[in-house]
């Protein structure tokens, strides 16, 4: 486990999480959420949980984001917060 990577990724995770909740566009939120999942996946790889990271990469960063984009596409991108 390499601590500078860990530290950097942990900080980024929080920033992306806040970003995906703050951005005033649902499509942007969906993409940032994908980035968040990918950061998490990196973090778990660093921690040695390869299977979990693999799953998160395929599910969280992949399919979940597609679901989000699909749902946003069927509804609206508009959000007030």
């Amino acid at each position, binding site marked *: 486990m390499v601590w500078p990577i860990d*530290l950097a990724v942990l900080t980024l995770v929080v920033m992306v999480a806040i970003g*995906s*909740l703050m951005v005033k566009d*649902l499509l942007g939120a969906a993409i940032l959420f994908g980035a*968040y999942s990918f950061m998490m996946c990196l973090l778990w790889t660093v921690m040695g949980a390869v299977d979990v990271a693999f799953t998160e990469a395929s599910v969280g960063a992949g399919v979940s984001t597609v679901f989000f984009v699909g*749902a946003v596409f069927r509804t609206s991108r*508009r959000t007030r917060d």
Partner: protein
Amino acid sequence: MADIVSTVVANYNYWIYITLMMIGLYAIIAKNNLVKKIVGMNIFQTAIILFYVSIGVKKGATIPILEHAHGGHGYGVVHAAEYANPLPHVLMLTAIVVGVATLGVALALAIRVYNEYNTLEEDEILAQIREE
């Protein structure tokens, strides 16, 4: 020096998981947009997964896959200290799956709500219900 840094990093890990959980929880309760709430819900779930994975970390241990796997035999004696704790990983695989299943249903419900009220903002929906 390395010790101090590693303890800071270690604590940092727990802090981050608690921070993420608070962010997620706040978003579910306070956000007005239904899809934003779903994003918050997922952040909340992921934070808990981060917590569990942190339990499984072991100093000086490698990933939980036994080495020399392709020979069929010749594993010798396996020392538990050499491999990370696999149990939290298993549990969290399940939790991730549950997370994506919940996400699917939540998005389907959000689409239904949108078809009904033509908006995703909670206060606008409540205003429409009150008018009826």
